[in-house]
């Protein structure tokens, strides 16, 4: 395995900028997820690393080698595709064998490596089957074995779980993570599913409109989003516009005074996560915002509550479905309540909420 460096990577399709100035260092053995809505440039970046797309500008290093000009078949990356992309006219074993044959691995060693790779994904007993005889999850496992059998320098996954149903998705996801950690694979995982990215990655890069918005560990990105897009894309957030009105004080457009620990002179928006607020009939805690309960939906582990604040502002709150709270469930639409939250749970931004 090897590290990967992206240096000022840029791709233009005609006049449209698909990826702009993407720089990132991926350490040996690290799993980095590229997360973003469709069309954000995450797949384009992955395909540039694999060599399917030539970058307009910038460089790609794998280990110490500059591979920017190297053709796909010489890059030694192992890629897994969204729709499995197994060779339909070959058995499972032949699929895995293909990459080894291309590398001129001697036949004696090949058999051994094929069985190792298939063992790794628990598909040995299916080695003589054809792809059409396998389920989606099994096909994706074979695709993983095929990509890893050649011992690539980088493991690239392009939305590998999107075609699987919910239960399998979790299973294959855990399997990919376990393999990645056991073998110490340098891995890039492209997804549009935030839960997937949060669960699996060491670090993630959130992309939007071809630009990297923020790179960091899942906790960092969730707790300290760098901008409104990241805050809103990763989980939900309630926003209040306004400005600093004193040391640790923030005044919203509607005239509410809030205590905000991290407020600074350039703060124009503050945010608080729905699961960090408490609903109560009484004002308490550092901040209390009067709200009206608009609607709520029971989601099993928690209840999603939609509230209306001052100036018809839409706010939301999550109530955990725990035993202690159960008596508190007499939620009724139209009730006037207080949304209470701590000064330290507020996140500050220096850009205005567009909504």
């Amino acid at each position, binding site marked *: 395995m090897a590290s990967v460096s992206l240096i000022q990577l840029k791709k233009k399709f005609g006049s449209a900028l698909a990826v702009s100035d993407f720089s990132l260092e991926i350490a040996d053995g690290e799993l980095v997820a590229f997360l973003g809505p469709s069309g954000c440039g995450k797949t384009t970046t992955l395909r540039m690393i*694999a060599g*399917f797309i030539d970058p307009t500008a910038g460089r790609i290093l794998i280990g110490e080698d500059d591979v920017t000009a190297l*053709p*796909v*078949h*010489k*890059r*030694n*990356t*192992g*890629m897994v*595709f*969204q*729709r499995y*992309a*197994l*060779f*339909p*006219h070959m058995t499972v074993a032949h699929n895995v064998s*293909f*990459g080894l044959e*291309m*590398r001129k691995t001697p036949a004696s060693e090949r058999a051994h490596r094929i069985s190792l790779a298939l063992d790794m994904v628990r598909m040995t007993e299916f080695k003589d089957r054809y792809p059409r005889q396998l389920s989606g999850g099994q096909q994706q496992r074979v*695709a993983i074995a*095929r*990509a890893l059998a*050649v011992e690539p320098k980088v493991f690239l996954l392009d939305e590998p779980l999107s075609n699987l149903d919910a239960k399998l998705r979790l299973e294959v996801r855990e399997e990919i993570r376990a393999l990645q950690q056991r073998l110490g694979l340098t891995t890039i995982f492209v997804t549009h599913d935030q839960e997937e990215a949060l669960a699996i990655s060491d670090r993630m890069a959130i992309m939007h409109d071809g630009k990297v918005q923020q790179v960091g560990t899942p906790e960092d990105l969730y707790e300290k989003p760098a901008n409104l897009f990241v805050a809103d894309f990763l989980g939900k957030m309630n926003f209040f516009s306004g400005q600093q009105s004193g040391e640790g004080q923030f005044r919203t457009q509607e005239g509410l005074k809030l205590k905000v620990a991290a407020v600074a002179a350039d703060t124009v928006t503050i945010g608080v996560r729905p699961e960090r607020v408490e609903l109560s009939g009484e004002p308490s805690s550092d901040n209390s915002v009067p709200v009206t309960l608009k609607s709520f939906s029971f989601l099993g582990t928690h209840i999603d509550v939609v509230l209306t604040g001052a100036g018809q502002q839409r706010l939301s709150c999550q109530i955990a479905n725990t035993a202690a709270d159960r008596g508190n469930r007499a939620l009724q639409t139209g009730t006037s309540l207080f949304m209470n939250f701590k000064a330290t749970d507020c996140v500050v931004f220096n850009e205005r909420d567009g909504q």
Partner: protein
Amino acid sequence: MIARTSFVKRLNPIKLFLHFFVVLVYAVMLCPLVFVIWLSFFKDAILFFPPSGYTLHWYQNAWENQAFINGFIFSMQVALVSAVVGVCLGVMAALGIIRYKFQGNKLVNTLLLSPLLMPGIVTGIAIYLFYLRTENFLDRDIVGTITGLVLAHICLTIPWTVRLVSASMQGLDPSIEEAARNLGAKGSVAFFRITLPMLRPAIVAAALFSFIVSFENLEVSLSLVGPGNTTLPIAIMQYLEFNLDPTIAAVSTVQILLLGVIMLVTDRFVKLSQVV
């Protein structure tokens, strides 16, 4: 009571009509074949119903007719060469049309399919006139040569290959070939080892159709064959000018059976019904 209900259900007039219609279509399609085969066994030299008896004489008659034997062998050769060359060219054309989005892409596609739209006799005469001009220009024989005939037949076979192979190619997931390249295969290796085998059913079907189209072609060959080089359909037509006995039916029966066998054998290896 239950049996009665289901019987009434089955007599649903729309379904009944559908069944009747299906049977009718099959009857209309198969009727000529059945009659040709049946007639080939009639004893009488002049056809009339009911036949006075049955005989295999006409098969012997056909077998002893040198024009048919020669025509059969010649047609086979022409059809084989046309099919092989036509399929190779057609696959390349389909590949170009589907893979590379060049200017005039659609125009080329339509042009390659156009021989299907033209009446055969018009195509034949057009090619004949074109050959005459070219002969003057190049100062060598083309009309009446085997090369001239094969080239014309290749033109007829190309639309089938282009149509079948490009349809099949459009259905392929491009990431499969990408996966091969990612695993270390050069573009050409990925094409020959991965893409081409996936197109195999379409290519086999295209070869079969090309062979049949060439083998049974009469209109185009008519103006292009030279002395000594007569295709089977032309031999049959020439025989018909002076005879009206069931020998023709016997020859046709042999041809029907031969093509039928080729189709069945092909279908064993490649499910034609999935491609066409």
